[in-house]
C-alpha cells in the first residue's frame, strides 16, 4: 500500500473484480479528518470529486452521491460500518468504499479503497471509468483541507 505525501492510487484488476486504493499521510488530528469525512452537507465544499452528497453519514444511514466520475448518475448508498475516527464503509450491491484512519505520531494515515465486482463484472468492466485520478484528487483535497484546519489560528 502507498503511504505517500502526494497520494498515488493503485488499481488491481482481476477477472471478476477491480480494486482501487489510495493512501496519504495527513498532518492533522484524526477528529478533524473524521469530521470532514462524515459531515455530508459540507463534503462538496472541500472535495472537488463530489458534485453533491445528501443524507446522513452514520451507522445504517442512507446517502445519495453524485460524483464527477459520472455527474448524471446518482449513487444510492448505505453506510455499512461507522467506527468513529477509525473506519467508515459505504456501498451498494455493486461494491463497497472503505475509508480507514490509522493514528500516527504526527497525524493520521488515511486510506481509501473501493472494490467492485461480481459474476457479471467482466460484461460491464470496460464501461466503468478508472477511479485512479478521482481517488488521488479526493485524498489530496482531504489532506489540504484537514491540514489547513489543523494549522488555523482564526
Amino acid at each position, binding site marked *: 500500500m502507498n503511504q505517500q505525501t502526494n497520494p498515488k492510487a493503485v488499481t488491481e484488476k482481476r477477472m471478476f473484480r477491480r480494486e482501487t486504493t489510495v493512501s496519504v499521510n495527513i498532518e*492533522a*488530528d484524526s*477528529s*478533524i479528518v473524521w*469530521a*470532514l469525512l462524515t*459531515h455530508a*452537507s*459540507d463534503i462538496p*465544499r472541500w472535495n472537488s470529486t463530489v458534485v453533491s452528497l445528501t443524507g446522513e453519514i452514520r451507522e445504517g444511514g442512507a446517502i445519495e452521491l453524485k460524483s464527477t466520475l459520472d455527474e448524471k448518475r446518482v449513487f444510492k448508498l448505505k453506510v455499512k460500518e461507522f467506527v468513529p475516527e477509525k473506519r467508515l464503509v459505504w456501498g451498494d450491491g455493486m461494491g463497497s468504499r472503505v475509508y480507514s484512519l490509522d493514528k500516527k505520531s504526527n497525524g493520521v494515515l488515511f486510506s481509501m479503497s473501493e472494490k467492485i465486482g461480481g459474476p457479471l463484472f467482466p460484461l460491464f468492466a470496460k464501461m466503468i471509468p478508472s477511479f485512479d485520478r478521482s481517488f488521488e484528487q479526493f485524498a489530496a483535497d482531504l489532506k489540504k483541507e484537514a491540514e*489547513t*484546519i*489543523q494549522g*488555523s489560528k*482564526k
Partner: protein
Amino acid sequence: MTTDKLTPEFETFQGELKSFILRMTASVQDAEDIVQETYIKAHAKLNTFRGESSLKTWVFSIASNLARDLLRSKKRWPETVTDICREESLGNPQFFQEALQIRQTSPQGNFEIKEHIALCFTCVSKSLPLEQQLALLLKEVYGFSMKEIASILNQTEAMVKYYLHTSRSRMIEVFDQRCSLINKQGICHQCTELNGIFNPKQKAQEELVKIEMAKDAENKSKEELFDLRMKILQELDPFESGAAELQLHHLEHNRQVMEKYLGE
C-alpha cells in the same frame, strides 16, 4: 467564588449572554428564559466551579448547554430564510402595519441598515449545524479563545477548529452569493429595500458609505468582508440599540414564519 460575588460578576456579562442566546434561538422569550435559568443553575452549582476557566466561560457553558437542549430537536433553517420570510411578509399587511407603528412611536424604532445586516446574519447562521453556529458566534462575535470555546462546548480544540473553519467558509460563501452589499451579483437587497420603506427620505447610497463592509466591498477579500460583517455584530447589542424594537419585531416574524415553514 461565593454566591454574593456571583451576582455582580454575572451582571457584567449578562447583556452579552442574552444577545448570544437571542442569536442562537432567534427568540426574545427563549433568550430571557435561558438567561434566567442559567443564573439559577450557576447559583445552584457554584460549589462545582473550580476556577479552571473564567466565570464568564463557565456561565456561557451552562447557557450553551441549555440552548443546545432547546434547539437539538428543532430543524435548522434554510440558507434562503430571508427570501422565504420576505415572501410571507408581503402577504401579511399586519406585519408592516405593526412595524410602521413601531417605527413611528418607539424610541427604539429606527431603521438602520447595519442593524438589519446583524438581523440577517442571525437568521442565515441558523442554517449552520448547531455546534458550528455556537462555535462561530462564540469566537467571531463574543471573542472567546479556541481553548475557552473547547471548554464551553466540551469539545477538543481540534474539533473547535473544524467547526470554525467550516462555518466561516460556509457563511462567507452564502453571503458572497446572496448579499448585494458585497457582491453586485448578490440576489438579496432586503436591507436597502426596507430602508426605502422605513426611511423614505433617506438615500440608501449615503447610508451605505457609512458601513465599512459596503463601502470597501470591491477592495476587500471575502474573508475581510466577513470580518467586517462580524464587527457589525460585535458592536451591536440587539436589545439596547436604537433599532432594537423594530428589529426584534422583524426577528419574531421570521421565527414564526420558519416554524410554520419547517412544520414545528
